[in-house]
């Protein structure tokens, strides 16, 4: 078993711009982020010998575009948490000696939609046969919130409580100049905003933006020679559940979250009380609730009240989604890369909404509509 802290993130950057980027296609966003990350690490294309990415841009396309000669490749594509899995797989590959320096890239023209991922599934897939004919637009706002009413009924969660999630995240976004939405909002604003798919209104749905990000990983032994403070990988986890949300086992809890989270905590050898900073992929307002419960930070059904009581807000005991999250910062379609970037910034001490004294950050991602999950536990101290 790989020891906690054996592998480190030594390069991390997002695209130069976020939001609307009409002058770059998807592959251009990958490249912009990759060049920024290589600059951050003081490396060039010849220093990279492993590549992982997801999207319409497959690894062979990114590798060629950037002029790489990789001897390790990972094209794992399971949606927005693919990057958490790339980190996990890259750590294993470096540990095994398959390669020494891995570049992980993300680029997505989610808003401008220039040469980016096509949306509708094939009509002969399970999604095409057993969900698309019933779901109208077959887009994330109609599918992802499908479990919400069952969750609310099971635990007695109110619309007001669910409206508090974007309110608190906007408080974090207000501290972040790169966040797309920064103006304060209230529970009343959320409940009066435009209905997208009952029970969710537009302020409970993520942004749709262009952007990207990239990470560079190497061994902890080499990490101290890089310009940035290393961010050590303590533990990782991954899992899958159902590719179609109608077949999710339990509408009040994600099995993939529970499996990935528990494995990452076990590998890292940490307890919940050790966690100083938390990122939970928030494509929609219910995801932080599922994440808090399925990762074990609170009891099942207790997350909404936990957020309501400001435990995850600025000044709270468990700072959550401190970049503003997918709800206020940015969301290209596969947001997991941006959650990882914020964990790295917090651990480097360079986040716009810096939490004092962060030593351990947990970053938890979802792929598809609860179809997949990946968790990464990181620290700026090598155990």
């Amino acid at each position, binding site marked *: 078993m790989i020891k906690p802290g054996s592998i480190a993130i030594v390069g991390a950057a997002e695209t130069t711009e976020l939001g609307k980027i009409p002058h770059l296609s998807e592959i251009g966003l990958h490249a912009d982020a990759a060049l920024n990350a290589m600059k951050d690490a003081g490396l060039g294309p010849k220093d990279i010998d492993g590549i992982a990415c997801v999207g319409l841009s497959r690894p062979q396309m990114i590798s060629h575009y950037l002029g790489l000669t990789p001897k390790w490749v990972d094209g794992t594509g399971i949606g927005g948490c693919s990057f958490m899995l790339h980190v996990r797989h890259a750590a294993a590959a470096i540990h095994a000696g398959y390669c020494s320096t891995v570049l992980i890239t993300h680029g997505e023209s989610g808003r401008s939609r220039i040469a980016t991922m096509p949306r509708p599934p094939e009509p002969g897939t399970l999604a095409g046969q057993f969900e698309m004919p019933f779901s*109208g637009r077959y887009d994330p706002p109609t599918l992802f919130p499908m479990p919400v009413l069952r969750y609310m009924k099971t635990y007695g969660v109110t619309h007001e409580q669910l409206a508090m999630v974007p309110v608190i995240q906007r408080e974090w976004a207000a501290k972040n100049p790169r966040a797309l939405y920064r103006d304060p909002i209230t529970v009343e604003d959320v409940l009066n905003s435009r209905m997208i798919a009952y029970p969710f209104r537009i302020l409970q749905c993520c942004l749709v933006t262009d952007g990207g990000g990239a990470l560079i990983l190497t061994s902890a032994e080499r990490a101290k020679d890089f310009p940035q403070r290393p961010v050590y990988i303590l533990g990782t986890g991954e899992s899958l559940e159902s590719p179609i949300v109608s077949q999710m086992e339990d509408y009040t809890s994600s099995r993939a979250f529970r499996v990935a989270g528990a494995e990452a905590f076990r590998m890292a050898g940490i307890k919940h009380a050790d966690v100083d900073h938390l990122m939970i992929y928030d494509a929609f307002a219910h995801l932080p609730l599922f994440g808090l419960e399925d990762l074990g930070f609170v009891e099942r059904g207790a997350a909404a009240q936990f957020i309501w009581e400001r435990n995850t807000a600025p000044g709270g005991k468990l700072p959550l989604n401190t970049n503003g999250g997918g709800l206020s910062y940015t969301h290209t379609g596969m947001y997991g890369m941006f959650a990882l970037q914020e964990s790295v910034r917090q651990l480097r001490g360079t986040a716009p909404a810096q939490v004092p004294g962060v030593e351990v950050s947990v970053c938890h991602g979802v792929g598809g509509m609860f179809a997949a999950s990946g968790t990464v536990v990181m620290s700026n101290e090598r155990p």
Partner: protein
Amino acid sequence: MSATNRPRPQPTPETEHFWEGTRAGELRLQRCVECGGKPYFPPRPFCPHCGSRAVEVFRASGRARLYSYVIDPRPAPGFEPPYSIAVVELEEGPRMMTNIVDCPQTPEALQLDMPLEVAFTKLDDEITLPLFRPATEAPR
């Protein structure tokens, strides 16, 4: 609901029996003949619980309860907004995505756990969709 120009499912060899069933006015599920016969869905030619290929197709009751849903107020081809997109739990256990018809598309009318029955809706000569409506007879 004018369903004819909806996204059309493409049956595959593994699912053909299901779509033959809806054409014939039957909701067909599968179950294992080796490991206890727990019904499953979506269709596949083996048991997802034990991996056995010894499975059989059977006719489900068509009775269900409303498990969860959203109401989409936005226009989409083949749908008249606002429309519910629902997941129902069949009496036999499996869940499926569908729409609730013959019912106001409001949170007040659409109560979780309300009893439902299948309402077959023809798209064309090949495809009939299993939609659901509030049950007209008391659940057993």
